């Protein structure tokens, strides 16, 4: 029995992906990316985090318009996108799949171009979500050379594995599988084709120091903005 929650492993993975970024922006309903940012700050990293939905002390005084203007100017290093569907060409669909209607594209069609790096993040790892080709492109994974584009996908993180994006070949490469999963299962549960090394590493489990921070200062910081998430993951530890 693992002594950490899946959400904690994912937050630690995202924290590593954020790496040495100076400014990370977090959009709608993204408690795990927000947790990753809070973890980095708790570790003493001088990271600027712009949380669009921060309830008290929100960094924006012109609403979400300011987030997009910052991104357009190049002031945002890392952003996160999810997807009702994500395909092997890193296209993102937030609109519809078959008869199913989803919330909508949000700012994806802009942020995917303007943020320096985008971390694709979707917990569900299934052929339903990771498809050969999306039904609708909310935001394209790549653009022709004449189309202005500052950034694009860095990686795709799911509840079971981490893929690195290879902009040259426009394909994903399996970077690691999370503890409890096997590469063969990942192949079976992924609807698109991808590259993989002979031997696939295991995603590192959270260290005891990371767990200590997550359940202490990080939980306290996240709870006001994502109360339901904090209750679910940290139950007692999240009392603000």
């Amino acid at each position, binding site marked *: 029995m693992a002594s950490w929650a899946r959400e904690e492993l994912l937050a630690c993975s995202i924290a590593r992906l954020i790496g040495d970024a100076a400014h990370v922006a977090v959009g709608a309903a993204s408690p795990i990316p927000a947790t990753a940012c809070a973890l980095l700050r708790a570790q003493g990293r001088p990271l600027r985090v712009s949380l669009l939905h921060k309830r008290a002390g929100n960094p924006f005084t012109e*609403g979400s*318009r300011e987030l997009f203007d910052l991104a357009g100017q190049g002031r945002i290093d890392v952003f996160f996108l999810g997807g009702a569907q994500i395909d092997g060409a890193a296209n993102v669909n937030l609109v519809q799949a078959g008869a199913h209607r*989803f919330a909508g*594209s949000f700012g994806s*069609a802009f942020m995917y*171009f303007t943020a320096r790096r985008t971390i694709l993040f979707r917990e569900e790892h299934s052929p339903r979500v990771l498809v050969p080709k999306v039904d609708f492109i909310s935001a*394209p994974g790549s653009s022709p050379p*004449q189309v202005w584009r500052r950034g694009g996908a860095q990686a795709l993180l799911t509840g079971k594995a981490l893929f690195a994006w290879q902009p040259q070949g426009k394909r994903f490469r399996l970077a690691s599988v999370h503890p409890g999963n096997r590469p063969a299962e990942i192949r079976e549960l992924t609807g698109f084709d991808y590259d993989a090394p002979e031997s696939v590493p295991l995603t590192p489990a959270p260290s005891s120091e990371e767990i200590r921070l997550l359940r202490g200062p990080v939980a306290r910081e996240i709870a006001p903005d994502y*109360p*339901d998430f904090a209750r679910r993951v940290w139950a007692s530890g999240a009392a603000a």
Partner: protein
Amino acid sequence: MHDLPANSPQFLADAEAIAAQIPDGAYLALPPDYSLVAMAVVRALVRRRARALRLLGVPVLGFCADLLIGAGCVASVESSAVSLGEAGAAPRFTEAAESGALRVIDATCPMVHSGLQASEKGVPFMPLRGVLGSDLMARRADWKVIQNPLSTQPDPIVLASAIEPEVALFHARWADRCGNVWIGRRRELATIAHAARRTCVTYEALREGDMLEDELLAPGVLASVYVSALAPAARGAWPLGMADLYAIDDAHLMQYAKDARTREGFERYLNDFVWQAGPGKSSSPAASRA
């Protein structure tokens, strides 16, 4: 582009009177759930059986749109998303969109902002980076691509056509007797108001004096030239929040998300919190069942 009027604000009695100012079929601009939604007016629109509203999400919508859609008030939604955030999918929107009962005009956030900014300036369009290669382009005849006229290299760029809402609707912390309203940090509401033909506002409290004469308040003020009608509505954003006055009622929204998954559950919700909570009724809109 149409000429827009210099409005002179009309003080009305309550949220019902504001709802009466919003005609059926109106192109109605609304803020997201986190940004001062005039929920008392939204409930009054349901009660007055408003029909065929064309909602514009600036740039996304949530609870208020789901309520209006479920109550049959809406013909179309133009938005970058409709979602209840942490409470999950917007159930009435999802069902209406999937059944084809609702026309959905998909957008992406900065295209909405840019279209409103074009209207603010009285120009026909505003260019924006990104978006090219998105399937949204094929659905939006009003989004055009041109070659950047200032570049000698191939450089296609998308244009957001000016968005001209008929009515902007939101809730404010204060109004003063001059008809100025205080929206604080929610300056995106000023953008909506600048772009809209008419702006209807409810407010928590009336403040004595002219807020524009107060240097600390003035930067958070939307001046009365944009405001066409305003009315008091204490806790007028509930169950959504009002800055530091009252927080969003998460438990209520979670309960709504659950109830509204079925038509019957939604009707029950309307009965408990909209039909029974009209003006003069005993049930206070601030009393949450959840």
